[in-house]
């Protein structure tokens, strides 16, 4: 296997006059959890469709695990697993039959061996007890988990997940996140898209922001935030009693602005590096103001995307 699990060079996708993906290049090293984030219409799904051999781009070079996906499409399909957005399931099959069919297309042994792998994957996504249920009887979240199980069947080296958490309740989202983190620990490379940046920030080792078919920024969550020119984040200090002393303490400090108070909670915007943020909070904790906990608002991440999306509309 090459050092880069995914390598994209000069990829372009057109739909008539509309350019969905504009000459992007990116590499995802092996074992990475890579997040692709952007507003609707950014070009994420088109990129994924090319990656998964479902669509031929206008031009560009793409390799997965060292395999040219245009020249060696069948081999590339052996090493990748794809979970589409709002993944459908057939209505005329039971859960185990659906998975067994896909295990068979990947030639995972005889019937008994396949069944063992099917049960293993169903167990992984907590659906083993529903093995004999019809696919059409599953809830949205269960369906997503079933399709994830299908994606994992052949132990792909590269997992491509398009909005895997869409339509899931918080509990299912957490379960999904844990499964993906577990897979990453086992050495799989995962590329996952979402329009919820905070969700990706929690589980991805690196992130790439796409907008209008172009790559705006890439790197760690922190690097992305600074590349997009919005190092500002919203922090909240929760105290045991009155929050006014905290407000007084915060006023005039470097990088702090927009302080507001709500009972025992003092919220403020902060601009600075992770180290500076850590130093500020440590000083606050040692200031004996009855500090109970800190929270970092996810909205600061979302605001980046909102600004990006608003920029789209204005242009």
């Amino acid at each position, binding site marked *: 296997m090459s050092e880069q699990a995914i390598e994209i060079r000069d990829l372009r996708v057109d739909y008539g006059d509309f350019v969905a993906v504009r000459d992007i290049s990116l590499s995802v090293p092996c074992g990475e959890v890579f997040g692709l984030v952007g507003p609707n219409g950014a070009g994420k799904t088109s990129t994924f469709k090319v990656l998964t051999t479902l669509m*031929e781009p206008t031009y560009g070079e793409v390799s997965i695990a060292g395999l040219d996906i245009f020249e060696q499409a069948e081999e590339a399909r052996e090493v990748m697993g794809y979970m589409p957005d709002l993944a*459908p399931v*057939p209505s005329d*099959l039971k859960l185990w*039959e659906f998975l067994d*069919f896909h295990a068979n297309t990947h*030639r*995972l042994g005889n019937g008994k061996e396949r069944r063992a792998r099917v049960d293993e994957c169903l167990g992984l996504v907590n659906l083993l007890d529903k093995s004999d249920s019809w696919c059409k009887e599953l809830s949205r979240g269960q369906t997503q988990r079933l399709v994830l199980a299908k994606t994992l069947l052949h132990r792909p*080296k590269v997992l491509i997940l398009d909005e895997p958490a869409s339509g899931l309740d918080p509990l299912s989202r957490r379960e999904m996140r844990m499964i993906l983190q577990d897979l990453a620990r086992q050495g799989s490379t995962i590329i996952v898209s979402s329009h919820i940046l905070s969700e990706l920030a929690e589980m991805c080792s690196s992130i790439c922001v796409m907008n209008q078919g172009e790559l705006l920024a890439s790197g760690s969550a922190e690097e992305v935030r600074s590349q997009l020119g919005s190092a500002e984040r919203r922090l909240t200090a929760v105290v045991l009693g009155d929050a006014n002393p905290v407000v007084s303490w915060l006023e005039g400090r470097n990088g702090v602005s927009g302080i507001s108070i709500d009972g025992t909670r003092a919220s403020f915007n902060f601009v600075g590096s992770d180290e500076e943020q850590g130093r500020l909070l440590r000083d606050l904790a040692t200031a004996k103001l009855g500090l109970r906990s800190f929270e970092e608002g996810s909205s600061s991440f979302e605001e980046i995307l909102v600004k990006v999306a608003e920029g789209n509309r204005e242009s």
Partner: protein
Amino acid sequence: MSEKSKHQAAVPAWKIWANPIVLRYARSRLRITGFGVHLMVVMLIAGFIFFAGRAAGVHQLNFDAVGAARGPIIPLLVLQGIVLFLLGTGQVAGGMTAESDEGVLDYQRLAPMTPLAKVMGYLFGLSIREWALFLATMPFTIVSVVQGEVSIRYFLQLYAVFVMAAILYHLTGLVAGTVMKNKRWAFLASMGMVFLLYTVIPQAAKFGLVYFKYLTIYPVLEEVLPFLIESRVGMVMEGYQQLVPSAKFFGLNLPQYVFTLISQAVLSFAMGLMLWRRWRKNDCHLLGKFSAVAIFAWLQAVLLGNSLPLINQGDVFPSREFDRRFGRFLETAAEGWWPAPTEALVMVGLYGLVTLFCLWAMIVLITPGTDDQMRGWRRARKFGKTRLPPLWDSATSTPWTVMMAAMGVGGWYFFAKSLMESRWYPGLDLTGGTLIAMVLVIFGGGLSMQALLEAKGKKYTGVTVLLVGMVPVMIAVIVGLNSDRLIPAAIWLAGMCPLLWPVYGAYMAIPVDDMPRDFIRAAPNAFWFWQGVVILLSGWLLVKLRESRKAIAEASKE
């Protein structure tokens, strides 16, 4: 052990029974709850046909045991045809559309199977219930064949063609299902196609387009029928059967079942090629430019090859068949049969119309839309090319259209010439303007369609076809019905419709006297006038197309 080595070797495409897609559908479509009801109904009908047919033979028709045993063979064949041809084809088309509609087709695109294995999987998987029902009725047929002492040769000939025809229709259903978006429409359209194939298309075969009958099981059925029914009736049939010509292809003289198998296998290959291309690349054209031209050439070859050898004996004329069947009753046999010139006119017109239809179908399959061209140009530029390679899907289809049109004109002219120079029309010759008329009809119709499609796209072309192809005829009918004096005006109006150009063109080639006087007076002028308009229009469209191509090439630089 590496991850890769844990996987077994790929299942070859021909191993249908091990194909994962076939097994998937075997699981869902042969589930006892759903399949059981269908099986019960079919077995009840087959059982009824079997026992009722035998009983009627023995007790009502006084056949001997062997003759009575043959009774159910043909009714069972009809039942099997309904199951496999009609329901099977509908199911394949509808099932394919449903897979695409539900979105699960993308999973199969990602499956590491060869495109051919996927085609085979869907071909036999989607219709597996119908195949199972067909096989369930076979014991009744086999018992009838054995007890009826039918030669195994005839049984195998008939069923080889039957199975080949089912595969051809199912492949056509798969193509329809791949192209169409609506499950119900795909289901109905493909069933309608099979229905037309067995009702309307054989009529075309009677008018010189002999090839079309080889798309059905009729020829082989005609050939083996005397041996599948009670022997006394069979002897009468056999006498008639000897009058049915064997399949002739230019100089070759082949048994009907052999030529039918060849014809259906070639078309099945063409359908399979379309599906293979789509499984290989989701957004490519159904046919490549070269294969479209090759298929068009094959169609011209079989249309000519099947009809030309029948001209001299007179078997190509519809009235000959009519005379054979009913001549003795109408007492025309004694006078001697002779084809009327109008018959040749209709046959030549129909040949031109079918050629034009085939040309349009190929043009639709290979002509790129503006989006295709834009993508093609961008890709070409990336690879440092200054023009689109001619075999790319995104390249213009104009030269290929010209090539096919030339073949079409050649075939049409040769058919008309052979017909008119035959011993049946000693005093009649093709007019000097025949070739010009044929060139105008085929090139005008083909190139204007191609230019419109490539420059303006499918929707625009569809609306134009509707307006030019139907509205003038509708108005002409209304005008003509209002007053006899307006019939020449109606003929002028109708001449605008491309579907009628081959008929007018055929009249230009064979100006027979026994046509209505108004037609004789108005048709030539109408034809030349509208062809003049078409020349101007085609020229203008080709200029527009050139401009559009240039604009797209320029825009692709951005």
